């Protein structure tokens, strides 16, 4: 047996061959290409054209293989056109007419290559996506009596809740009109909801805590006048989001210390009255990005297809159908491991496990306010997930590369993760555990080597493995501090 790929002999590695000279490979079982076992990623490959011949092919036949030419095959089988079957005659005539005579087909066919090139350019940075365009006929819906789709009542057109404000005069009844309505000065909700969401992101809770419901079922705003002032400010700035973030993060309210006295905590445990600065555990994506940034691993490239960072094997397989195209998780190599979390591939039936542990949602239903739980599973992620172990290792290397004595290295780590110097008491506590790590890894080179092997990036060969192991642990301590995990 010989294998050809795109008309050229393919390299073959024979894994198993027990076929004797008189045996046959004839069998009733189907032949699967790329399916040695169920976990083989080649299973997911799709083949455009596979042909199997019972005879050895001549060299020119092999060269012609990539170019499908049915007419040539018909001629090869039977040179005399008078002896062709009806089907063969049809195929030959069809190819001849469409390929040589029909002007429209010829011109369309000649345009294919240009379109392919254009499509490739468009999709180079990611798969093409569906977009919405307006229908030419007006959209409508029928009111169904008790939900029965056979019992249609009144026909209704697109509209808005009348108690808010009217549809803008002269605006079309489509998305364009809706956009105009949303941005009109008479309609207060768009601005209020938007500023409340941004406030929630910056301060950890909205001025209206039920950020997804500013109606009568929702919470009352804690500072109604402030909410309205911010809404008007945002609208009058021309909906300038960046400017609005700047307004919030440069405000005196935001720049307050997060420290709280017992009296403050007793009176206002949730900081509803904004008597102190915001303080809350960051979302999983922010945490991962912060750790990668501190380690110097973060790849800040913008855009492109989703990436697959580290994930233990088996998580997708446990829930997927055997025929699913996202059955087997194969982590990326190289920069795909270190991109910002916003680029992480999302399988809704099984979201990225380490982010889900930090309350990332499956993205199946809308989420306006993410939960913020505190579980031991989260400590396992930040201590043991290879992503975090590797980040600690590279951060530890940075501390070593920065040079100096132990105290200076600790200061380096403090600035890289906490953006402040250490207090003497903190320094003393860290020195104590750093000494313990030093003793351990100086005496156990095998353990140091094993720890350095976590993650795809290579350790700095200029550094002593025992020291890198020691400082991996110290760096991991910084990445696990409440202050690092908390905004």
């Amino acid at each position, binding site marked *: 047996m010989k294998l050809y790929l795109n008309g050229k002999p393919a390299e073959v590695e024979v894994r198993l061959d027990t076929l004797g000279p008189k045996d046959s490979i004839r069998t009733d079982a189907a032949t699967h290409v790329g399916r040695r076992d169920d976990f083989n990623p080649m299973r997911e490959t799709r083949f455009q054209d596979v042909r199997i011949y019972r005879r050895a092919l001549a060299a020119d036949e092999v060269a012609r293989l990539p170019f499908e030419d049915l007419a040539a095959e018909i001629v090869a089988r039977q040179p005399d056109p008078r002896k062709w079957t009806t089907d063969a005659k049809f195929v030959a005539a069809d190819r001849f007419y469409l390929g040589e005579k029909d002007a429209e087909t010829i011109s369309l066919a000649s345009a294919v290559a240009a379109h392919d090139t254009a499509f490739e350019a468009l999709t180079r940075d990611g798969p093409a996506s569906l977009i919405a365009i307006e229908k030419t006929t007006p959209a409508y819906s029928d009111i169904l009596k008790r939900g029965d789709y056979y019992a249609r009542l009144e026909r209704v057109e697109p509209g808005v809740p009348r108690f808010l404000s009217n549809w803008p005069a002269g605006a079309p009844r489509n998305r364009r009109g809706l956009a105009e309505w949303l941005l009109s000065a008479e309609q207060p909700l768009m601005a209020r909801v938007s500023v409340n969401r941004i406030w929630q992101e910056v301060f950890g809770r909205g001025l209206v805590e*039920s950020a997804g419901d500013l109606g009568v079922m929702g919470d009352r705003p804690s500072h109604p006048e402030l909410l309205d002032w911010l809404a008007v400010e945002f609208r009058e700035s021309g909906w300038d989001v960046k400017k609005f973030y700047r307004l919030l993060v440069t405000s005196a309210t935001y720049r307050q210390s997060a420290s709280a006295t017992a009296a403050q905590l007793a009176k206002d445990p949730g900081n509803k009255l904004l008597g102190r600065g915001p303080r809350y555990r960051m979302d999983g994506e922010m945490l991962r990005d912060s750790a990668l940034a501190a380690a110097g691993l973060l790849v800040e490239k913008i855009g492109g297809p989703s990436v697959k960072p580290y994930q233990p094997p088996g998580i997708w397989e446990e829930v997927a159908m055997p025929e699913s195209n996202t059955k087997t998780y194969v982590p990326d190599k190289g920069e795909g491991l270190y991109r910002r979390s916003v680029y992480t591939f999302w399988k809704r039936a099984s979201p990225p496990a380490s982010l889900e542990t930090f309350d990332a949602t499956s993205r199946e239903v809308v989420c306006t306010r993410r939960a913020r739980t*505190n579980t*031991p599973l989260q400590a396992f992620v930040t201590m043991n997930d290879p992503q975090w172990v590797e980040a600690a290792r590279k951060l530890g290397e940075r501390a070593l590369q920065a040079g100096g004595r132990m105290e200076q290295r600790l200061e380096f780590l403090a600035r890289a993760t906490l953006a402040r110097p250490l207090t003497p008491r903190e320094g003393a506590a860290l020195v104590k555990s750093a000494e*313990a790590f030093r003793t351990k890894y100086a005496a156990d080179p095998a353990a140091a080597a094993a720890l350095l092997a976590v993650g795809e990036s290579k350790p700095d060969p200029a550094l002593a493995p025992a020291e890198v192991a020691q400082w991996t642990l110290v760096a991991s301590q910084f990445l696990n501090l409440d202050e690092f995990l908390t905004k």
Partner: protein
Amino acid sequence: MTPNDNPFARDHDLCSDHCGEHPTVWDLPHVPLGLKREWLRLETRRQFLGKGVQALGWAGLATLLGRNGVAQAAESAMATRPALVPNFAPKAKRAIYLFMAGSPSQFETWDYKPMLYDMVDKDLPESVRGGQVLTGMTASQARFPIAPSIYKFAQHGKAGHWVSELFPHTAKVVDELCILKSLHTEAINHEPAILQITTGNMFPGRPSLGSWLSYGLGAINEELPTFVVMTSKMPHRTNVQALSNRLWSSGFLSPEHAAVALRAGSDPVLHLNNPKGIDGDVRRAMISGVNDLNRQLFERVGDPEINARIHQYEMAFRMQTSVPELTDFSNEPASTWDLYGPKAKEPGTYAYNCLMARRLAERGVRFTQIFLRSWDQHSNLPKNIRLMAEESDQPTYALLTDLKRRGLLDDTLVIWGGEFGRTCYSQGTLTAENYGRDHHPRCFSMWMAGGGIKPGTTFGETDDFSYNIVKDPVHIRDLHATILHLFGLDHNRLSVKFGGLDSRLTGVLPAQVIDAILA
């Protein structure tokens, strides 16, 4: 009933935790004074439910803080958070749900239909089908030939239940079971059906049964999850249905109530194990250093969340010991392996998961759900259902027997079943040895045992074709109401504000506890 009668009512909106301040209508105009007083009463109660404190999953952190004597004045409100109490005396403390995904046929399992042998290959009478809309998989069949079970039935136990020869082991404990033959659902395809039976609603985004139990009752053992899910290796792979986290998600409840998926093998909880090169002593020194700094931070900043973080890490360290102890089967006596069979030694098999379920039950895990897929036998049913039965019969029997001999069955509810039933007519060609069965939502069989269920009983009846229910129909919401009842919860009162409703597991349509099957 008004929401204010509801001791479990808490306010939520989408995917929020229940940590922060709650709305007040006190300053709203046009609200009757009586209603405002009700609000005030609720507000007071809510203050005990932990204002401004994040939920600690897996565990009542409050208890931990109290136990370890490190509760600070600032977090006393959280420490006094009362345990949630049932509405009435519970019969079940925990449950193990053996979920047969893909839906086993009732004809080869629990619903014996001898009349069908007189009608082999005859057409299903139109009067029985009653104009029902079929799935696209059989709607175009020219005829609907009746296919009786190829497997024989015999009577077993004191009650004389008819059990298929596919379940020789379960037949030995049939006197423990209550067999329900009249379950029904609206869903005719897997995804909506499996969502409906796991979350009470065909649409995704609702809390699952286990999440409701976690929310309503909390943890028994703080060092283990309240709700555990395990998926099982399949003995064959034909028509395998997808599972997804939405089947065990917490929906609009706080994520702490979602199931923890226990994985087969050496890392049963994700990233539980230290990386190679870090041993227990190093980990201890690392956490001690971290918590030393966290304590200093608490002194400066005063945020009670920092204390929660300290205990999060201490609990993680303890779990690194307690979870391996859970998954280490080496101290199981020889009788365990006789009972569950040799496959129980292979991580991830159904037998292994059943044994794990017993160990979880012993350690106080509230709700364990084991998924076994590949029961969806549209074709080659005789061969494939036998494979599935052989995989699951002995471990199921072993689990019931093991729970019983350890005195756990009395307060452990065991549930067995799929998401819908199957048709009495063959999908595809009927031959003497082979046939298939399409989906059938109008009736299906399940069984329950232990945990306050009346043993050795059956409930509900279907017609001669097991096509329609003729007596005591049980909707999925009735099943859910009954399960909650066994845990001491009133399904009408276990609710959460979501989407403008007091949302419940059993939804808005009336649901009934099946009193007849309660012990």
